[in-house]
């Protein structure tokens, strides 16, 4: 394709033509009313801008709306789904209140999951500790001191058996927040289902598995990008055929944002990742309408209320239009962007932690007004450590109050048609397309990652914000304004016992398992890894059933594919 005329730049061109009004009403108001007022009352008229560096006017009018607003909005459940992906939205079914949990030992996690189920949580979510996220066993030299610290430790299928003890895998939907070794954890989940005689077609859940954003933001990888992408492809093809209710990827902007990006960078980089996965599925020979409906997204909801709402509305519209126009998706379900949202961890302060409840409430409201399908609300003590039971309960109650007391769920897309929100949605969309265009000109998202471009963009945004905070141009209540003397809050502590228990369990497994079976299954897995046309998932399932450990499995890949070093960012 001619680089100067790619799909993105053409769309961008047409977007820029969608407003041809001259803002006469605003201009004359400013001249006749606002300016004289400011002059006489000596108001300070400083410029306002949001995280995406979009300069905000004092007020918006109907002249700020697109000429094609009707087509660009659609109605709820109709193309391009700006107002929501379902006709009935929350009047039909509330969003899923999905609280991220998992810490310490599998026993602790099992208890926490059951506690949340008994308090009305409707979906399970599991966090893993750092060694697990990097594909290391609890007895690895590097794991010392880290076992069970940031989530649950899983070294073998045995741990998964304990986590889900007494929980019916055919009835729950489980979300596992893991990326680099996602295929191994998926294999464990499937193996567990098979052992419990739950057919794979009934297994519902989500694994994050979005490796691109790891290179961009969270920095948890094991191999070079190509090796991980191959594993995602394998999950894609396997699940499309065998586990249709399992979301094998959750394309995530959350971490991009937490790494310091702006809202529009989160939007653009996440969707660019999404388009890459679409390309990959098509290249693997899958029909876009067969796999696109299983892709789901995960966004951050930060503190700038309207910016977040506009971001989510723009995301839905971009996804639907690009899937239809560029990828020729025919089925409506392929065009629907389903997404999970988590309130921002970065906006929480360790100072005056109760303020975090208020921040989380505002962010959760934005997610609901933005039309999210599921929501995690952070706990007020999370700037310090993993949340305590009490803090988690308040966070869950926050969602319940929004859902059942506030009236926010009564009317679909209540902000639709707001001059400001619609204008901002358009702005987010255009700025995202500018990034899509630039990324394409750089040779695609993989090149943009390997050259460090995306990482540098994020680091630059994050540093700029830090300087604004230092100068007090941006406010964090309790941290750089209205500061008080602080008292430490009580926090959850993971004892070293977790590590000792895990070590013992792993030792027992290694002693009692059928070693010959482990070796055989690992040998077969190695051969499959060396053959790029083989699908790895069945081999992984065999290996985990034989109680091969996470690290034994990932080590084969380490030998075959090697590791990966990112370019120097600063």
């Amino acid at each position, binding site marked *: 394709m001619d680089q100067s005329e790619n799909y993105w730049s053409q769309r961008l061109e047409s977007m820029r033509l969608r407003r041809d009004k001259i803002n006469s009403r605003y201009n004359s108001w400013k001249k006749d009313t606002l300016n004289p007022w400011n002059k006489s009352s000596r108001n300070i008229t400083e410029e306002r801008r949001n995280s995406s560096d979009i300069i905000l006017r004092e007020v918006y009018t109907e002249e700020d709306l697109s000429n094609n607003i009707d087509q660009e909005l659609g109605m709820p459940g109709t193309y391009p789904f700006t107002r929501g992906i379902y006709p009935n939205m929350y009047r039909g079914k509330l969003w899923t209140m999905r609280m991220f949990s998992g810490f310490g030992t599998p026993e602790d996690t099992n208890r926490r999951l059951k506690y949340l189920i008994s308090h009305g949580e409707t979906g399970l979510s599991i966090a893993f500790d*750092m*060694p697990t*996220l*990097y594909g*290391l066993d609890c007895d690895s030299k*590097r*794991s*010392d*001191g*880290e076992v069970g*610290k*940031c989530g649950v430790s899983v070294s073998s299928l045995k741990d998964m058996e304990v986590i889900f003890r007494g929980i019916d895998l055919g009835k729950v939907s489980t979300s596992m927040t893991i990326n680099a070794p996602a295929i191994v954890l998926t294999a464990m989940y499937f193996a567990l289902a098979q052992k419990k005689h739950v057919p794979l077609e009934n297994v519902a859940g989500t694994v994050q598995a979005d490796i691109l954003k*790891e290179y961009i933001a*969270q*920095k*948890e990888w094991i191999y070079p990008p190509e090796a991980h992408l191959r594993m995602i492809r394998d999950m894609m093809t396997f699940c499309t055929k065998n586990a249709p209710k399992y979301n094998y990827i959750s394309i995530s902007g959350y971490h991009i944002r*937490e*790494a*310091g990006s702006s809202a529009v960078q989160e939007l653009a980089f996440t969707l660019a990742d999404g388009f890459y996965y679409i390309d990959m599925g098509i290249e693997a020979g899958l029909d876009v309408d067969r796999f696109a409906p299983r892709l789901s997204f995960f966004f951050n909801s930060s503190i700038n209320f309207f910016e977040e709402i506009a971001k989510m509305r723009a995301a839905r519209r971009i996804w639907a239009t690009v899937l239809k126009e560029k990828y020729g998706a025919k089925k409506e379900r392929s065009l629907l962007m389903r997404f999970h949202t988590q309130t921002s961890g970065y906006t*929480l*302060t*360790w*100072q005056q932690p109760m303020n975090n409840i208020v921040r989380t409430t505002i962010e959760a409201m934005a997610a609901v007004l933005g039309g999210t399908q599921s929501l995690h609300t952070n706990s007020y003590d999370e*700037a*310090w*450590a*993993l949340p305590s039971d009490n803090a988690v309960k308040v966070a869950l109650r926050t969602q319940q109050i929004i859902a059942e007391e506030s009236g926010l769920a009564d009317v679909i897309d209540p902000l639709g048609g707001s001059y400001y929100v619609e204008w901002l949605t358009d702005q987010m969309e255009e700025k995202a397309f500018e990034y899509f265009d630039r990324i394409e000109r750089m040779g695609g998202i993989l090149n943009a990652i390997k050259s460090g471009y995306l990482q540098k963009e*994020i*680091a630059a945004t*994050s*540093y700029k914000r*830090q300087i604004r905070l*230092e100068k007090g141009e941006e406010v*964090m209540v309790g*941290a*750089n304004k209205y500061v008080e003397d602080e008292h*430490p809050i009580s*926090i959850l502590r*993971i004892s070293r016992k977790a590590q000792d228990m895990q070590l013992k369990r792993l030792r027992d497994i290694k002693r009692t398992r059928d070693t010959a079976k482990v070796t055989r299954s690992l040998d077969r897995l190695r051969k499959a890894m060396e053959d790029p046309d083989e699908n790895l998932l069945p081999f992984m399932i065999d290996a985990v059933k034989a109680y091969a450990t996470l690290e034994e499995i990932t080590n084969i890949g380490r030998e075959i594919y090697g590791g990966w*070093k*990112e370019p120097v*960012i*600063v």
Partner: protein
Amino acid sequence: MVAGKSQSLFKDRPIKVLLAKPGIDGHDRGMFVLAKSFRDAGMDVLYAGLLPTPEEVVDTAVNEDVDVIALSLMNGAHLTVFKKVADLMKKRGITDIAIVGGGTIPDQDRPKLARMGITGNYGPGTPISTIVEHVKRRAEEARKRKLGLN
């Protein structure tokens, strides 16, 4: 006067800092912000990259003869992992490189870290200027030791 003295201590060789996250922790947002902030405060800054081992951190600190090692962890493993770095330094008899810490460190842990010689231990939301001032103070001590001034 402290400012004047430190000026001459660092006149020909700016404060040299090594930023490192020696655990299994890829949250590098803060590292990048600090790297740029330290540079903009006139320091020479090294970043140890992702997942360095405690040995790598100490080797780099020695070969580069830094004044301060600035450790950060957000994964709750600071008591174990920071200690490994401090222990290695002790084992090699290095007393002229200061160690400071930061990350998600609860108040209760600060005295324990301080006993290992790791100071600062600032949490999220700490003003950069506070961190820079602390690093400068520790760098001054370290530099005086290096020059045999105390």
